[in-house]
């Protein structure tokens, strides 16, 4: 059985450091929460490591709703990482 992957979006300086706006990650038990996914992504490469170095400056949304590190993830979810918002 092939599960739908997670769709990952990056914004602002996270996008710039990762080097892309979007990617997909296969769903797996170790990425079944926002914190788990973040740890997984941080180990994915140099840009990712730089993007996720200052965890305190990283915010997330799951399926376009603000999320916390504990928020559970499910196959097919859209997960976005971004800095604290600075709009207006």
């Amino acid at each position: 059985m092939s599960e739908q992957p997670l769709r990952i979006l990056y914004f602002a300086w996270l996008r710039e450091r990762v080097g892309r706006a979007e990617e997909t990650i296969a769903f797996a038990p170790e990425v079944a929460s926002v914190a788990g996914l973040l740890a997984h992504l941080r180990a994915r490469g140099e840009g990712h490591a730089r993007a996720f170095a200052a965890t305190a400056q990283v915010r997330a949304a799951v399926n376009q709703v603000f999320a916390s590190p504990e928020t559970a993830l499910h196959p097919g979810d859209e997960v976005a990482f971004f800095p604290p918002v600075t709009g207006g």
Partner: protein
Amino acid sequence: MAEPRIVVAPAAFDVAGEIARLTEGRQDVGGIGCFIGTVRAESQGRAIVAMTLEHYPGMTEAALAGIAAEASARWPLLGCTLIHRVGRLLPGEAIVLVLATSAHRQAALDATGFLIDWLKTGAPFWKKEHFADGDAIWVEARETDAAQAARWR
């Protein structure tokens, strides 16, 4: 209240046209609260030549519609418009418009203040400032903005 009007787009907005949308042909509006945010040429003592606003398409519009609904629940609004520009903007340009109409002035003004505080602090926008020397930095979230929005919680 009528469906709030939410626009997140690069294009400049027409304040008079937007006010007319909320008021034309009706006689129950007593007050229109309005706030327009504009790009300043200076940020924390440095001259800026431009600003880039990034947003999260889909989530941003949903978040704006959500806060408009919350404002309508708090105040007896007759109408509400939130327009936020994105992309590259120059000093002097208008960047955000809030309109709130009500039968009475206090509701219109209070809702306007509530909405702009939230737009400045809670909406999924990220701001990059471009300086005259070619340098560009992402603006960090400001404590005072968060404190401002906390007044409403």
